[in-house]
């Protein structure tokens, strides 16, 4: 960094350095997205006693590249009577929040692009904008299927964002901070001596479940994928999209999955902290590898859900969100508040 600042002057050096850091986050993320699609097809394949893609490259490892090249070569079709500008802006609107949120995700207590004070709020605000991509895509395509998908998606996301927010309220109550680095550091001490037992998932278990399931709903993944619902409304909001415009929606969906997994790992599963007590030497040392392991674990859950559960009916989704998750999270926020004030509090 100092080398760059000497070469380009203080401000330009800082800008170039920040750009390099952004690149260092986004490039692995995109590779992760590409291989998550392969992992999904492989995992679901084995769960259904198939092999999955195995033709392109050794053991099918080059399949994501082949898919990407195929989509790049395809024409982007603009439907007649569509709102052309909005039709093309919609994929951008959906991938922008999925990438922008990574600005505040800490990988270790020092490895973070922007260590801002209100990073939890920032994440919630940015991810809440992802729904515009879906709504605008569904409306601009001038198709009834995509419009139905957009309506379902907006209703679903508005409902589940509330329970997700309340789950995070519990987290910020026990950590006393909106800063993600502080939230992880707070999980490092407690009854379990910094091991897996002192992380937030145990005392906040109902909120952990609510957050995990709301996260699946927020990313429009099975069993909450009514916005796509291929057996009912063809492909939902992106039915009119082809080629790279479709691929961008695809990228956004998988980037959002990785983001929600990373957030679950940071808020409830101790982020980069080791699951073993610090006295265990190398095993107990914290590091970015633990965060990656936890993210992969949650991602595997996402794929597992998809292979296991049939799609929820629309009214069942609404009932689950409003009548079960919101009361559960509200009550547990109250319980945590009383717990913190009592002499039994774990968080002094």
């Amino acid at each position, binding site marked *: 960094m100092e080398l760059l600042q000497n070469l380009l002057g203080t401000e330009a050096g800082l800008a170039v350095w920040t750009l390099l850091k952004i690149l260092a986050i986004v490039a692995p993320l995109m590779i992760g997205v590409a291989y998550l699609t392969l992992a999904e097809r492989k995992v679901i394949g084995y769960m259904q006693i198939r092999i999955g893609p195995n033709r392109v490259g050794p053991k099918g490892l080059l399949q994501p590249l082949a898919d990407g090249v195929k989509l790049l070569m395809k024409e982007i079709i603009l439907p007649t009577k569509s709102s052309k500008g*909005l039709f093309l802006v919609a994929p951008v609107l959906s991938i922008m929040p999925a990438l922008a949120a990574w600005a505040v995700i800490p990988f270790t207590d020092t490895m973070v692009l922007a260590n801002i004070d*209100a990073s939890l709020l920032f994440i919630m605000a*940015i991810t809440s904008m992802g729904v515009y991509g879906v709504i605008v895509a569904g409306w601009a395509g001038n198709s009834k299927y995509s419009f139905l998908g957009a309506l379902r998606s*907006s209703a679903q996301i508005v409902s589940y964002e509330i329970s997700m927010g309340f789950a995070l309220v519990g987290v910020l109550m026990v950590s006393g901070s909106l800063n993600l680095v502080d939230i992880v550091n707070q999980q490092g001490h407690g009854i379990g001596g910094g091991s897996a037992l002192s992380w937030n998932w145990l005392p906040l278990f109902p909120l952990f479940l609510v957050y995990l399931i709301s996260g699946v709903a927020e990313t429009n993944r099975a069993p909450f994928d009514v916005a796509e619902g291929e057996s009912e409304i063809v492909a939902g909001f992106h039915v009119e999209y082809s080629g790279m415009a479709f691929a961008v929606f695809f990228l956004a969906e998988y980037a959002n999955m990785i983001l929600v997994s990373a957030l679950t790992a940071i808020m409830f599963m101790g982020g980069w902290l080791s699951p073993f007590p610090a006295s265990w030497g190398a095993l107990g040392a914290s590091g970015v590898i633990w965060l990656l392991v936890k993210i992969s674990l949650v991602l595997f859950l996402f794929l597992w859900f998809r292979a296991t559960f049939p799609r929820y009916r629309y009214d069942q989704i609404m009932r689950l969100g409003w009548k079960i998750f919101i009361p559960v999270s509200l009550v547990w926020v109250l319980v945590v508040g009383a717990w913190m004030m009592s002499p039994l509090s774990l968080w002094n």
Partner: protein
Amino acid sequence: MSFQAVVFYVLSLILIVAAFRVVTAKNPVHAALYLVLAFFTASGHWLLLQAEFLAIALVLVYVGAVMVLFLFVVMMLDINIEKLREGFWQNFPLAGTVALVMVAEMVLILSSPEANLAGFKAGAAVAADASNVRELGRQLYTVYLLPFEAAAVVLLVAMVAAIGITMRKRADSKYINPAEQVRVRRNDRVRVVQVQAVKPEADTASDTNEQQA
């Protein structure tokens, strides 16, 4: 011009254009999306004032929730914008006068010596580790506790009223209690009837023969 000033003017330009297009856009969905842009840009202004909590709350509440519901409704309505504009020039003189009076009032208020606009300093530089959220929370829950609680009660009343208006039993509702659905067993829905396999009777066989002949 400092970096902040450049950002301020760019944001202001976008904000004014977006706000203007909210009113002038032909398509109500486009107008709603311009309103989203206007909210988002306004939150940028608040960030420049170092009010990050308000800025993020604006995006979270208005962009992330309120405008989504707004769009939801606007997309489903069939609004004929030409019909809405029919009386525009008839009402224009009255509306223009009202607007002019409002502008004049604002100018008078803001330019009067009592307003003391020059006396307002730019936000004092805060310490780098000062938490905006913590400070805001402290103020809300100590100094302004009573107005804050009163506002909460008003919001609660509005919420109860909104639910009260829409909550009524509809005769044609097909809602089924999911607990009942889950409890259903095979015997409640399916009745297995034993049907004896029998030969066709002699007279029906002769009927078909007659039709053929």
